[in-house]
């Protein structure tokens, strides 16, 4: 099903991709059931069955799609984000502010506080409607900051009372003469926070990407990533490609260049909505080769980019030189990591990539934890089945848990795995938990660390830095207690509480 840009609201990924958040079992089963249920991509032989989600009786707090959409809008330069919400929704903006400054430092930008305003809705606004207050706030934002674009993010509260945010945005757009982009990110709409990526990418694609296909730049490669330093230029620069790094802090100019590029790559298929949309709307080809985690995958990824951008004559030399460059260090790392057991916790395609890296470094990975699972992608191309690819190229993961960062379930999964170290994203929950269980942990905030040839070395070295800290973590564990009953503390099945009713 094509992406529908006619409506201001992005369809949730639960609806589009069949995204699930609760599952446990061998990874091969998950890949097979996903393929069987959603279009039979890779490995869909006879004997398939419908993908059935588990049904945990309760949830601990994790994250909200609204935060993803709002944070990623806020860090776009020369814009103001208005959260049309009660003030509590704005609590995550202190994180955004820190994130924005950190990004600026890493990307060599002038550190500036991002601009964001909350309409601070109260009881009266819920009863009488909040659009007048929104209109006033949009005018204030314009007067105070003179932004080039204003985003208006909705909230659960405004979604329920049915405030006409689109109409107000349109009206103020006529009045002020700048784009006012509504982001429909009510937290209740999707069961997973990653839907927030779709919301911001939907807003960008609908409103901030002009059709400049006639100005085609054959050397420009759109790279859509989660955020962090530019590790892509060293990878594709030797092919004569210039990187247009998108998400994780954009300028409006970069967004305006999207339709001129020769191709788009996505560094995590969780974010591929924008890439698929660019291909659909402007014919910018989306590179769908498996993500560049590990040497073989990186070789093939570069070859696919070279094929699409017509520079195949350059690519083999780049691959050979990169492989030769990292070989001695890779050998050394493999020697030091041999026999170690790792546990990976991250979001879907990114988790699959990290597992590939660890296995190439000689680390054993029998257990992994994915914060959600997308059984299909927007392109519908089985090439993007990153879990299927991982299993096909590196083998089974016996215990593969899908859980939206649920502390109590991570506890059981880590008990079951008993790894030498944990590598994780969304460090708030998993990293502290692992530490309190006495396991050395490598939290990754900027998810580009494991990419490409150099990524193998970066990850390998980082693991070697945390492994010697076991004593420290054991001390932490000795002083830690968990708020669980003794029977749960002994559990090794993250879904032991499951009602055993397989819900859809």
């Amino acid at each position, binding site marked *: *099903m094509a992406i*529908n840009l*006619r*409506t*201001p*609201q992005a*369809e949730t990924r*639960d*609806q589009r991709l*069949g995204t699930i958040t609760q599952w446990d079992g061998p990874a091969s089963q998950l890949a097979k059931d996903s393929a069987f249920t959603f279009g039979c991509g890779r490995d869909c032989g006879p004997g398939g069955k419908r993908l059935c989600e588990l049904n945990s009786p309760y949830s601990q707090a994790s994250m909200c799609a609204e935060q993803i959409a709002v944070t990623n809008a806020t860090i776009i330069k020369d814009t103001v984000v208005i959260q049309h919400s009660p003030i509590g929704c704005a609590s995550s903006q202190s994180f955004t502010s820190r994130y924005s400054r950190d990004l600026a430092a890493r990307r060599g930008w002038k550190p500036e506080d991002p601009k964001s305003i909350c309409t601070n809705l109260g009881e009266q606004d819920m009863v009488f*409607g909040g659009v007048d207050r929104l209109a006033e706030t949009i005018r204030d934002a314009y007067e105070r900051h003179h932004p080039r674009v204003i985003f208006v993010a909705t909230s659960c509260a405004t*979604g*329920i*009372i*049915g*405030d*006409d945010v*689109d*109409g*107000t945005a*349109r*009206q103020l757009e006529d009045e002020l003469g700048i784009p006012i982009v509504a982001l429909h990110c009510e937290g209740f709409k999707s*069961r997973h926070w990653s839907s927030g990526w779709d919301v911001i990418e939907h807003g960008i694609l609908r409103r901030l990407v002009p059709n400049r296909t006639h100005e085609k730049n054959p050397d420009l490669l759109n790279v859509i990533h989660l955020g962090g330093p530019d590790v892509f230029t060293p990878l594709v620069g030797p092919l004569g490609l210039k990187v247009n790094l998108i998400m994780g802090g954009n300028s409006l100019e970069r967004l305006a260049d999207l339709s001129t590029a020769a191709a788009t790559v996505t560094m995590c298929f969780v974010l591929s909505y924008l890439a698929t949309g660019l291909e659909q709307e402007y014919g910018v080809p989306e590179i769908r080769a498996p993500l560049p985690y590990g040497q073989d995958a990186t070789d093939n990824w570069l070859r696919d980019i070279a094929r699409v951008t017509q520079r195949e004559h350059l690519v083999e030399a780049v691959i050979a030189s990169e492989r030769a460059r990292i070989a001695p260090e890779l050998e050394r790392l493999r020697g030091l990591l041999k026999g170690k057991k790792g546990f990976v916790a991250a979001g879907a395609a990114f988790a699959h990539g990290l597992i590939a890296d660890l296995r190439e470094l000689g680390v054993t990975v029998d257990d992994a934890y994915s914060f959600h699972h997308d059984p299909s992608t927007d392109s519908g191309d089985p090439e993007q089945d990153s879990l299927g690819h991982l299993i096909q190229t590196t083998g089974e993961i016996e215990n593969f848990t899908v859980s939206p960062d649920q502390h109590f379930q991570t506890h059981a999964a880590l008990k079951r795995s008993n790894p030498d170290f944990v590598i994780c994203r969304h460090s708030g929950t998993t990293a502290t938990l692992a530490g309190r269980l006495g396991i050395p942990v490598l939290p990754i905030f900027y998810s580009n660390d494991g990419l490409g040839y150099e990524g193998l070395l970066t990850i390998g070295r980082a693991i070697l830095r945390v492994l010697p800290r076991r004593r420290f973590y054991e001390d932490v564990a000795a002083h830690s207690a968990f708020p669980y009953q003794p029977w749960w503390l002994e559990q090794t099945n993250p879904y032991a509480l499951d009602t055993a009713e397989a819900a*859809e």
Partner: protein
Amino acid sequence: MSRKPKQIAIYGKGGIGKSTTTSNISAALVEAGYKVMQFGCDPKADSTTTLRGGEYIPSVLDLLAEKRRVDAREAVFKGFGGIYCVEAGGPAPGVGCAGRGIITAVELLKQQRIFEDLDLDYVIYDVLGDVVCGGFAVPVREGIAEHVFTVSSADFMAIYAANNLFRGIEKFSSSGGALLGGIIANSINTDFQRDIIEDFAKRTSTPIVQYVPRSLTVTQAELSGKTTIEAAPQSEQADVYRALARHIAEHETSKVPTPLSQVELREWSASWAEHIVRMERADRERARAVA
């Protein structure tokens, strides 16, 4: 490339005959050869029953209650003459949020491109009359219906509801929302009723699209689970609905309404109350004089 259907919303106070009128318009349009969808936006989910022989259909929100992923096509049923029938549905009385239900149901159909895929000429929304919250205003917002008609009798409460609707339309008109097509004057059988509704129409500069008399034919058809067009196609009443459908089909330009303020409405109804008293007194005196 699919064309854009003409989208019409019909509002009116509960019990005023809105679903009856809407279903007869749909039936007349389909009889005239158009492809029509009728979309019931009322938690009672009974807008389309007379298009389906008195049978209720599962609503969009019934499907959503059962499973997380909804194929909106499963909520589309064919009725009389091939009319596509959809009911938004909603929560049980006293729980949840019916307004949010309308938002969710309309959005699901839009996102899944149901209107485009069915290649429709008309989508007619039959909406619960009192626009009590943002959800019930969804059909009149930008990008959904272009024309709104209100069904009203000469009953003062129905006129109050119509005036409230005008206020809602006026509010959204500046942000690209639907505009007012006119009043469908329902159950108008006496000159006196006609005077009241005409006076209201004049005060609010709103055209009256059609007068629909109260008729036993309609009741009989309803009781047999049918529209008048289906049950009594040769009747005079069926021709009234055909004329109404023709007016709606030919209708091109709607306007921003000029609703009465609360005070004006009160004064207006008070003046009619005095007028009624005067008329009744005159009638009584005439009767006495005759005696």
